């Protein structure tokens, strides 16, 4: 039972991460490899606040999201000037720099990370037990889903779609494409960092290995498998990609091989979907990844 709750928590966290990245990919056509870094910034800021200052859930989440926004602006302002492939390579660079900071700074605890993180409080009540933490994780995922839905259906969402379809046309009617892209980037960072807050309070310990470039590629895989531009697709992909590798447990596979096989499975999905089904499981906008 405890394990089932753990898996559901993971699904909720990855749903949030995939949704937040999907808005960026689905509406700007740009794929950022820095998502795990921003997620990690949220997690580390939360852990440090909880250990030293406050473990109020909403306050830590707010501050983590602000830190995430600050970092993502630092990434976005230079990187968004670059074209597709160069943008992706620049974000690989930023991801590696952020990871090196987690790994090497004293304040982040180096390779050991931070542990013994206290339970969060919400309106003065201490939240204990994995089930209630799961509820918070699900609440964030739902919030992210509905805000994304609201944004994409708003006039601003129409503008985003216009950016996706024809940037030159958007620029020609006097809208700043750059500013639109930066705002999507910021929006995406808020939820990624908030997911980091949830992660810290659920696991009560963090180390840098959770925020590697592989993690970023996994989030990208979720978005591509689900379908770029499809919110439901990202939710579905998070559920499937967390649960399916659990089936390996029923196969006679040695323990040492299981994590490798999991990576092979994710890599295979990335290759198969980019080769044969670029619209993803439920996406319809094939033109984003053309």
């Amino acid at each position, binding site marked *: 039972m405890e394990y089932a709750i753990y898996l559901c928590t993971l699904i909720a966290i990855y749903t949030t991460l995939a949704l937040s990245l999907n808005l960026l990919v689905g509406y700007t056509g740009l794929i950022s490899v820095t998502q795990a870094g921003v997620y990690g910034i949220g997690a580390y800021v939360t852990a440090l606040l909880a250990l030293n200052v406050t473990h109020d859930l909403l306050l830590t989440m707010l501050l983590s999201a602000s830190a995430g926004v600050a970092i993502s602006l630092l990434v976005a302002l230079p990187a968004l000037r670059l074209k597709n492939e160069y943008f992706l390579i620049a974000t690989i660079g930023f991801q590696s720099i952020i990871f090196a900071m987690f790994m090497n700074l004293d304040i982040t605890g180096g390779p050991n990370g931070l542990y013994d993180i206290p339970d969060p409080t919400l309106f003065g009540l201490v939240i204990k037990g994995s089930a209630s933490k799961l509820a918070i994780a699900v609440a964030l995922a739902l919030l992210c889903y509905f805000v994304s839905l609201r944004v994409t259906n708003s006039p601003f969402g129409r503008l985003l779609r216009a950016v996706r379809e024809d940037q030159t046309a958007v620029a020609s009617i006097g809208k700043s494409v750059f500013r639109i892209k930066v705002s999507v980037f910021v929006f995406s960072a808020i939820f990624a960092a908030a997911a980091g807050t949830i992660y810290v309070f659920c696991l009560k310990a963090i180390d840098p290995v959770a925020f590697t470039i592989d993690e970023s590629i996994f989030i*990208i895989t979720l978005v591509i498998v689900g379908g770029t531009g499809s919110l439901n697709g990202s939710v579905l992909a998070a559920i499937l990609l967390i649960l399916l590798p659990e089936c390996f447990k029923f196969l006679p596979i040695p323990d040492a091989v299981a994590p490798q096989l999991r990576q092979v499975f994710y890599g295979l999905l990335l290759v198969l979907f980019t080769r044969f089904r670029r619209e993803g499981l439920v996406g319809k906008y094939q033109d984003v990844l053309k």
Partner: protein
Amino acid sequence: MNVFAQFLVNGIVAGSVYALIALGFALIFTASRVFHFAHGAVYTLSAFVGYSALVIFNLGTIASFASAIIIAVALGTLINEALYEPMRELGVSSFVMMICSFGLLIIITHLTAIFWGTNPVVLWRGGQETVHEFWSIRITERQLGIVGLTALLGVGLWVFFKFFRLGIAIRALGNDSELALIYGMPARKLRNISFAVGSALAGVSSLMIGFNVGIIDFNMGFDVILMATVAMIIGGLGNVSAAAGGGFILGVIQNVALWKIDSKWQMALSFSILILVLLFRPSGFFGEKQSAVGL
């Protein structure tokens, strides 16, 4: 002064490692305009195949190199034929091919880990090693070999792309593949040749570097391909030998920086250089004029 010179020489040795892998990576990029990250996996797999031939089956050094090169060429051309070419025919952008390539890098890297294990394996126990001293700067025989091989390949490829018909054709193909097709060039065949030669370079360099370091592990291709990307971009896109130059620059900067900066920051330093180059000099130090900047 001597300390500085030693760091410089170490940098050139480290740089030639990046340069070797960047040469093949850039050759493939020049022909196909794909950031072929799976090249890192070709590099890893060929090293392990060479290791099996040498250590497990005891076939000797020549067979080890031969098997590494054969597997590298086969895998490289297979990847192009099975993935990139069909995607190109569908009009898929090179951006998506790049993401596909990432997936492939993950698959092959972890399959290598499943077959050969996650622990590093010993390729070469070392033994007597001739150390040359020039004005009290030390460099081993094998390090000299790697630097020499890199310089030779760098110059050779420069001559090939500058003066030979095939080389010029491959460059033209990279610049404008549609125009190349209109002129009746066998585009697909040229790209396959580039993948074959580029992958062969990965096969040779992975073993050369494996012999120099002594051990190999399944993750070796991942960091190396990222560094090759950095080398190629700071060297300048569209010019294969420039990538080797970029590799040398990267190696020298990394090692000279060791003077002041802890080695744990090496990766971060390299990527900071990459980002600065992308922003302020997107054509690299020796590359053709082109822009990475734009919407």
